[in-house]
């Protein structure tokens, strides 16, 4: 392979993370940037999110998903980023200091060589199998995101009366969407004692449409051998198991599952990137570099976000870092952990290795009343942030300035 065939940055996935990463890589001096996307258009999941609520932080404006994507697409168009859609990256291997990625597209399958890779493949939805949905296997059971695509892009009416299992954001948004399209939503159920999605979606998607939300409620059966005919919901008892005897049957022809997202790291695994079991994404440092030098990760493949704006921000950071790496690869000599103290579920980054201004993203283990998040190095407090109430579903972002390479601890204290 000739030297000019070596890319500076290869970005995998053109959702908000990948688009921002590709643009940022180009803006930070990478000369050859290739952005590959398996769909036939850019935007990733944004394209099917026709509701508004995007861009509040980034543009101080309420945009729909496609509108938000459009701005990134314009930014890309003004760069010299090479874009290949309908292309699947299926393998990554390290080859001395370089990386090789196997790309497959209509009519072609070949390896490309690159100095750096940005992983931005997003996430997938948890399925009926993952939540042990009982019953036979009738038609009419969809994950909320697939249903969203089928309705919003493919003009398909899925069913007339649905129960939504899980109170994730996509589920709640689909509850509103299906109602607006003339279907009825019998209920949204949530196995946890608290909702899975954002407070604004509970108000705007459920309360405003009188859709009941049943917390601490699981599914004890599904009826219908051919098409869904109903579902049996039951409360979660004190011991954590379902109390079927106290359950009740709800008639419906459709079940949507909104039971969580899993970062899609099959490709990262093939590249032997070290994953964090808490986020199910890569372990990264403050510039989004994974355990494999030259491989960066951002967006939902790194950890599941609740707001696209922050995905874009992380994407820009990863793209910039990849561009810098492609010009001057420096492997830091020491790196120290960012550890999760009291009541913290995870942090990203999981480690730091250079001084500078960084943002620590985190989630708490369980919903908290009045509390304070503290970031410290030893006894020195780097940052503090107080909350009147903090949901475990809300991602918290705390900017801190790192001056010395000592381990960082994050804790959540009740106030």
């Amino acid at each position, binding site marked *: 392979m000739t030297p000019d065939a070596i890319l500076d940055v290869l970005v995998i996935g053109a959702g908000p993370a990948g688009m921002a990463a590709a643009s940022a890589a180009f803006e930070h001096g990478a000369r050859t940037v290739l952005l590959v996307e398996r769909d036939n258009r850019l935007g990733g999941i944004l394209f099917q999110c026709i509701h508004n609520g995007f861009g509040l932080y980034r543009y101080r404006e309420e945009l729909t998903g496609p509108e938000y994507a459009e701005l990134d697409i314009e930014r890309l168009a003004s760069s010299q980023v090479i874009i290949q859609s309908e292309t699947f990256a299926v393998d990554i291997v390290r080859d001395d200091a370089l990386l090789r990625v196997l790309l*497959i597209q209509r009519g072609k399958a070949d390896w490309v060589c690159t100095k750096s890779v940005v992983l931005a493949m997003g996430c997938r*939805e948890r399925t009926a199998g993952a939540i042990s949905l009982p019953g036979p296997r009738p*038609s009419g059971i969809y994950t909320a995101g*697939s249903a969203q695509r089928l309705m919003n892009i493919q003009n398909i009416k899925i069913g*007339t009366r649905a129960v939504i299992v899980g109170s994730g954001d996509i589920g709640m948004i689909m509850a509103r969407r299906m109602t607006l*399209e003339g279907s009825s939503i019998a209920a949204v159920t949530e196995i946890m004692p608290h909702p899975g999605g954002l407070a604004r979606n509970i108000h705007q998607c459920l309360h405003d449409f009188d859709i009941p939300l049943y917390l601490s409620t699981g599914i004890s059966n599904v009826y219908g051998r051919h098409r869904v005919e109903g579902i049996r919901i039951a409360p979660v008892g004190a011991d954590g198991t379902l109390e079927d005897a106290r359950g009740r049957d709800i008639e419906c022809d459709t079940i949507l599952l909104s039971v969580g997202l899993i970062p899609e790291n099959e490709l990262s695994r093939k590249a032997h990137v070290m994953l964090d079991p808490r986020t199910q994404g890569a372990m990264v440092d403050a510039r989004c570099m994974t355990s494999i030098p030259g491989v960066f990760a951002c967006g939902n493949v790194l950890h599941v976000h609740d707001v696209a704006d922050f995905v874009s921000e992380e994407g820009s950071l990863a793209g910039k870092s990849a561009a810098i790496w492609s010009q001057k690869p420096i492997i830091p000599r020491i790196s120290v952990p960012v550890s999760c103290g009291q009541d913290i579920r995870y942090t990203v980054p999981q480690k730091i290795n250079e001084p500078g201004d960084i943002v620590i993203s985190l989630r708490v283990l369980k919903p908290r009343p009045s509390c304070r998040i503290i970031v410290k190095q030893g006894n020195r407090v780097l940052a503090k942030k107080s909350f009147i109430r903090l949901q475990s579903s809300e991602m918290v972002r705390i900017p801190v300035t790192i001056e010395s390479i000592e381990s960082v601890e994050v804790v959540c204290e009740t106030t």
Partner: protein
Amino acid sequence: MYLFTYASVGYTRFMENFDIAIIGAGVVGSAIARELSKTTARVVVFEQHADVAFGISGRNSGVVHSGIHYKPGSLRARLDVAGNAGMEKLCRDLYVPFERLGKLTVAFDQSQTMELERLKEQGDANGVPGLDLLESSQMRTLQPGIAGIKALHSPTTGIVNPMMLTIALAEHAYQNGVSWKFLHTVESITTENHNSFIIGCSTLDGFRSYKASIVVNCAALHANKIAAMTAFNEHTVYPCRGEYYVLDKRLKDELNILVYPVPSAHSGGLGIHLTKTTEGNILIGPSNEYIDDPDDESSTRPVMEILKNEGNELLPSLQTSDFIRSFAGIRPKLTPPEKGGYSDFVITSQPDLPNIIHLLGIESPGLTSAPAIAEMVTGLIDNRLPLKLKREWKPSFHDNDELYRRAYPASHYPLAERQEMIEANPDFGSIICRCEEISKAEIVSAIKRMFGPITIIGIKNRSRISTGRCQGGFCIPRIVSILHNEFGIQSKDIWLKGPDSPLFEGTLRQSGGYHDT
């Protein structure tokens, strides 16, 4: 939905007439149909579902058993060992994934060791090749980390993709002239005389009747219902459900060989254990519960719980996201719940109506035995209606139609080979199912290969779409687009498995919608 219309559509004045009618398009019915396709007999298969392998043949462990578990001299022993011996060639001829992994039956204490010795003797008597008792160190070279004090190694045990085996047998029979009537539920069999029967079926277009001189009942869970139609009431079929979990392929290297516990004497199954599919998924199961309804293929909460716990014990590295799907298969047992255990297959001409052949109680190892059962049944038929071989019959497909029929998906083969496929048909590069890396070319082939109604499960069984960790979340919307763009099938006409299981209600707006693939 139906892609093309059949000759049978519209009113036919004369009843269609066949030499041999097979009831049930499972692996047994399909193997018999293929065996008979070697002859000049006119053969028809009636199936209540929309496709082959929608019964138990698509819902089992897919293990090609060696034959150690069956009483010497029994049909199960004889047909299993013969089926096992021929499986490799059959699968090669018909491009079906088959692997001879071998199996360890493991003893944990002294009494089980004695049972192992008995199993070895029994296996030797049945003519099972290569049996060997292994000490724990030898066991561990075959499967590192395995517990237990002694094991019986049966090297001929294998695994097969049961859906693809059934489909291949049926498709091959179809290519060789067998007629298939899907969505035909046999409701009545009337005897005109000793060698002429009228078979009445309910269909989507109402009741239809057909004539045949031989009837073969391979209706498995409903075989006693069919038998009752000709007043053959010797046997009762007791449905006994086995539930499974399917695990992510991530774990495929955890199991190099099949590992079974020593079965307890009265259990009607071989115990909950791990097996591997030819695709590399590990299965946990099957459970063993007698149920009343032969069609209740539900997964149930309590059993799912047991299977999960068992799985966590057998595979400590298991994560919750590894459980990608559950399913259940139902054994057509001839032994009642209070008795448990097994009885032998019943394969017999009805004494008072010898042109009717019943197959009852074809539970495990029915999959392994199917090819040998087919030969035996053909022998029984030949006694009643002498069969003549066709000269033009070939053991493999006539695949000049350029459809994809290889044993594994294109992504399984080395890059150079894959590039050749892409060269010949660029659609091999368009990936539609992300988890299994199945291309558009393979999906279109699968649809074109169907010789009955098109269903999503039928496409899945032929191409493996949506069998991975996202369970179709990604590919189903895209397959809907392929059906729309390439085959002109509207969303309201797409069936999951049949006319009663439409995927969708229809469209939201009269026009619009974007179908890209």
